[in-house]
């Protein structure tokens, strides 16, 4: 750092003020930039893969496909009938793990009201697919109850980790539901069934498929 010599106190004083002003300006600019571009949320956001009913979607850890959703006021789950003041929505999901066995642990329905209705069990619905072996498709149901006016336009979300979706794939499947579906379901439709998870094409006895030994 060079020291000024000669002309007395005036120049060093203004130089110092100038440096301080520049530093403050730089800090203020930096703060304004980080404030106006909310990077934090984007760095941690999940990678959302959009899809629709019947369209397989490729995630990092599995290929998943949602079947036609069904709904009613009542859900038949393992012999127990659960009645809802809203609508029980059951979506069949078919998943094929990739790379290593996967246990998908998150399913939720994002209603048209923007609320996330997570299939969390507590004895009312849920999503329990168990462990899927890579290459062996597995079928499981997602059962969620939600208010009737949130059903039309609802989306199904599927992910691997039950709580942490940062920086990993998340499937966002448009269920293609309309108000007509809701009216059909709330107007005395028979109860929907929540089936236990199973490997697709599982047979009760050994399969006689023609592969040799």
């Amino acid at each position, binding site marked *: 750092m060079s020291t000024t010599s000669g002309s007395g106190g005036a120049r060093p004083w203004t130089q110092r003020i100038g440096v301080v002003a520049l530093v403050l300006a730089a800090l203020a600019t930096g703060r304004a930039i980080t404030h106006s571009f909310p990077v934090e949320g984007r760095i941690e956001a999940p990678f959302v893969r959009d899809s629709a009913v019947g369209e397989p979607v490729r995630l990092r850890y599995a290929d998943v496909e949602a079947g036609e959703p069904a709904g009613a006021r009542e859900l038949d789950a393992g012999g127990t009938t659960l009645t809802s003041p809203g609508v029980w929505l059951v979506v069949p999901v078919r998943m094929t793990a990739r790379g290593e066995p996967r246990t998908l642990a998150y399913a939720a329905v994002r209603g048209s009201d923007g609320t996330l209705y997570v299939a969390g069990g507590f004895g009312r619905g849920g999503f329990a697919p168990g462990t899927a072996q890579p290459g062996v498709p597995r079928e499981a149901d997602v059962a969620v109850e939600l208010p009737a006016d949130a059903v039309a336009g609802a989306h199904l979300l599927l992910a691997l980790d039950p709580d942490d979706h940062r920086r990993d794939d998340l499937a966002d499947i448009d269920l293609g539901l309309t108000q007509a579906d809701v009216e059909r379901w709330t107007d005395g439709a028979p109860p929907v069934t929540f089936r236990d998870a199973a490997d697709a094409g599982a047979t009760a006895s*050994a399969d*006689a*498929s023609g592969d040799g030994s």
Partner: protein
Amino acid sequence: MSGRRDWWRRNRWALAALPVALVAALAASSDRVATYYWHAGLHDARTAGHGEWFELHDEYTDGKGTHERVVRVRLDRTAVLTPAALRQVRVEVPSGARAVQVTLSLEADPDLPLALCRLALRDADGTRYDYQRPGAGEVTTARPMSPCVPGDTPGPSESLGRLDEVLSADERDPRPRSWTVEPVVVVPDDARVDEVLLWWREPVYVALDVD
């Protein structure tokens, strides 16, 4: 001109230390690589050729401290089960998949806890097909609770420290010094199995060549 050469000379030690500082900074901030990557998966492979005995030396920590684990294992054979054989061993296989029976011979001290092991098949792409434990009521010889110890004589469990005293004693016979297990793994039809993986504590695992 000479000023530039002077600069190099004045700063030679700092410049020499720069790569060292860079490596040290990277090392200091990568301590999580061990916890979140190395110890959280199968990364320390101990490979063995087909039909060879392999002796695994590893450690485990239980309620009484850290102990050595020495196990000898050999892959005898892998065989795809025919539908008739599947009916005999009462294993269900979904369509598009087949059942591979893995025959392993193992030798270990009868006092060594070994029941908490995991078994998998791995194909040429690196896809892993795990042995899946049956539910409590579905245990058979082809689908045992543990794929690496005999069903009737699994041997001791890992110590729980002071809780050992309140646990009821295991009345089963001790595990033999050498035994054979034949668990069945379900894989898709198009899987080309390359290796059998056996592990107790990540990252250490034994990879046995199938061919």
